């Protein structure tokens, strides 16, 4: 019996886990469900000794264990298959296992490893060639090697961190009976996922996490799929008033027609983007909901030109972007990227320099190829005042600002000057309530001034509150919805891939 008792963990003020308790019986398959950022991975990293909890304890068969490191976790029989495999691609399967679970530094007992690998694989009805080089195996086969590695290392409790995210449906179909047969042989399996259908087929019990809290734990079948989806998404919270959307949107600003994007590699079966149809008109916000990893990043990359598309047309205000160089193409858009510190801001530069990144080429800001310091300062001061950026001065390094004020600076730069098309990805992630309200109000104000806004957002409530139209991204497809004629739960079901046509 593995008991997780009152575990809490905070990362810099954000409560990643709050008082989570869960008991897992030996030989059972425990599903852990939750949206991205719900705390699933944090909980598993605590179990595996990668993170120390702030409070709470872990008990194994009644005894309190302190999992200080992955090494300790392995010693007490906890094995983990990470999303990113920890295998040496240049070595054979046998050598990888010898490296991971071997103890001596003498001669390799390849024959005995071969025997252990093949007999374990056979008991799971897998075909694993112990002499093949890991780098030449596909992702599904590599995952099997990882599972074998965890079991040969003495694992009695196997944590699978979103194992199906990298698999084809066929590989998923083969993984499920293998996991069931492991459970029959007494291995405890903890299966992390945000895909309901797989959890239903694989698990005995499920636990649902939402924003760091355990909102449900019980046997499979106690709740319907709809009820589980509702647990994962939660109930709507209070949001700022955002002003009415304009009654009649104007001309089409951004238009995507039949945009497809092939696979980056052959191991994944779904296209990144599957026949995307999208238009964003002046004065409207089109919201794209979806569980992360369903093609949202690819959509933005395709629009900005950093991801080549295999077919289809992307147009801004009626002109095709296909022949523009990427840097010219990027200038067509105001963009609030997901990774604000990596893509949106230059952390080593000052606040002023960051505010000027879009406009420093304008003649008013330069003279003889040099910058006009006074003009820069005037523009920066104006933006700081009108976007209420709290800072100690215009020349302070942008790093010295709080996360919320960094985001305000980014938004000030991008939204100033009435850009015709705005792309925003998770613009409020990691922000406190005040900064969140500010960001949403700024987007609403830009809409009022006639911008066409494409908003990709993982917070469904904020998305529904601000969007004029809502679409759902699932498995590379962009599905229209009848929001607000359909309810929030219907959109939640579409995000989970349940009855996508019903909404």
């Amino acid at each position, binding site marked *: 019996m593995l008991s997780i008792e009152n575990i809490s963990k905070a990362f810099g003020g954000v409560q990643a886990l709050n008082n989570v308790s869960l008991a897992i019986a030996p030989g059972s398959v425990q599903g852990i469900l939750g949206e991205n950022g719900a705390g699933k991975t944090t909980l598993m990293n605590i179990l595996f000794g990668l993170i120390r909890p702030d409070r709470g304890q872990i008990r194994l068969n009644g005894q309190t264990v302190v999992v200080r490191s*992955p*090494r300790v976790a392995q010693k007490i029989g906890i094995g983990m298959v990470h999303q990113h495999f*920890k*295998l*040496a*691609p*240049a*070595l054979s399967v046998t*050598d*990888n296992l*010898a*490296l*991971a*679970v*071997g103890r*001596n*530094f*003498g*001669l*390799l007992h390849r024959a005995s490893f071969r025997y252990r690998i093949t007999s374990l694989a056979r008991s799971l009805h897998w075909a694993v060639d112990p002499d093949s080089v890991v780098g030449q195996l596909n992702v599904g086969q590599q995952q099997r090697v990882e599972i074998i590695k965890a079991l040969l290392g003495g694992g009695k409790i196997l944590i699978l961190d979103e194992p199906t995210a990298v698999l084809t449906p066929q590989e998923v179909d083969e993984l499920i009976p293998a996991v069931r047969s492991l459970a029959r042989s007494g291995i405890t399996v903890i299966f992390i996922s945000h895909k309901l259908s797989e959890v239903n087929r694989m698990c005995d019990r499920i636990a649902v996490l939402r924003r760091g809290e355990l909102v449900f734990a019980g046997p499979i079948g106690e709740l319907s799929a709809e009820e589980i989806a509702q647990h994962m998404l939660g109930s709507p919270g209070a949001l700022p008033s955002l002003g009415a959307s304009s009654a009649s949107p104007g001309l089409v600003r951004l238009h995507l027609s039949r945009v497809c994007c092939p696979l980056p590699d052959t191991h994944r079966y779904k296209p990144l983007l599957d026949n995307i149809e999208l238009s964003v008109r002046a004065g409207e916000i089109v919201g794209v909901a979806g569980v992360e990893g369903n093609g949202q990043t690819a959509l933005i990359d395709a629009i900005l030109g950093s991801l080549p598309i295999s077919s289809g047309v992307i147009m801004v205000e009626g002109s095709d972007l296909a022949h523009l160089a990427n840097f010219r193409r990027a200038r067509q858009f105001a963009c609030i990227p997901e990774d604000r510190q990596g893509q949106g801001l230059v952390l080593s530069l000052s606040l002023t320099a960051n505010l000027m990144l879009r406009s420093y080429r304008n003649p008013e800001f330069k003279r003889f190829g040099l910058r006009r310091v006074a003009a820069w300062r005037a523009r920066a001061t104006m933006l700081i005042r009108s976007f209420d950026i709290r800072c100690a001065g215009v020349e302070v390094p942008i790093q010295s600002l709080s996360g919320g004020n960094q985001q305000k600076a980014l938004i000030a730069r991008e939204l100033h000057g009435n850009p015709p098309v705005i792309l925003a990805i998770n613009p409020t992630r990691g922000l406190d309530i005040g900064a969140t309200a500010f960001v949403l109000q700024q987007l609403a104000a830009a809409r009022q001034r006639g911008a066409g806004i494409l908003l990709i957002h993982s917070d469904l409530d904020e998305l529904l509150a601000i969007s004029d139209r809502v679409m759902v991204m699932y498995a590379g497809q962009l599905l229209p919805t009848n929001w607000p004629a359909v309810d929030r739960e219907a959109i939640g079901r579409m995000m989970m891939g349940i009855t996508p046509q019903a909404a």
Partner: protein
Amino acid sequence: MNISGESLGTFLARQTVQAATPLILAGLGELLAELTGVINIGIEGLMLIGCIAGYAAAGISGSGGVGLGAAILAGMGTAAIFAGVTVWSAADQIVAGAAVNILAVGASGLAWFFYQNARQAAHRSVSLGRHVGFQSVAIPGLSRIPFFGPMLFDQYMLFYAAIILAVLIWLLLHYTRTGAILRALGDAPEACQAAGISVRTWRTGAVLFAGACAGAAGAYLSIMRTHAFASDMTGGQGFVVLSLVIFGRWNIPGLIAGCLLFGGINSLQQTLQTTRYTSHATLMHALQHIPFEFFQMLPYVVALLALATLSRSSPGPRYLGQAWKQ
């Protein structure tokens, strides 16, 4: 150069192996270090330090063995500085390696200056006595085999050592868990970390071993093959070693093949420069019209061509040149 009593082919074969020996020695160490993810472009400098340390220690002690030991220790000592800077302080390996090369030029020149002064002050000869240093060792019986005998069994002691070392390292890499770890360190350090292996400790060991090998290669140049020291005596061989590791695709048989190829071209060009071989008068006549600088350049051109054609198909260890920060 006295080549009487040998056919040109036998002479060239023997010269080829002699020229290849320091490359094999230094290459084995560098290959191991690169497998673990550390590229040391300071091999040239480590060899030069081995040259002077070996020469001076042999000269002072009068013993070639002491010279060889000193060269190995000096190579390891300098490599320890490199390991501290790159493996533990995560500095850029290329920049640190370049610094090692510059350091070595200065340090070896300084050591040479002090050595000469000390010897002159003591009224002793600066050059090594005939009995100091090493002579080639003919293995009884085997060295009498036509062609292969002089080529493989009438060589300096370090050649035999290099071949034994090569076989041992090859066995180590492919038949032990240590070898599996070494091969994984540069390719998937995170897999090693997950197995509880200290990536940085192992990398340090590999770098020190490479330093020892380069030091020995330096001693080979100064107290075996030539019995002399000159400030430019490594002549870029340390850099050639780097390209030969790539040429051999991080495999020991490939590395040795590359070393022999390079050594062969190099000894061919030296022979063409220095001998007038009467029985091959027509050939020599034809070659006389080519400036000898062309032949000097030839081995390096071949090395570059090999790099250009092979690098693309064989990228080497994935984390080569990247520091591990955990």
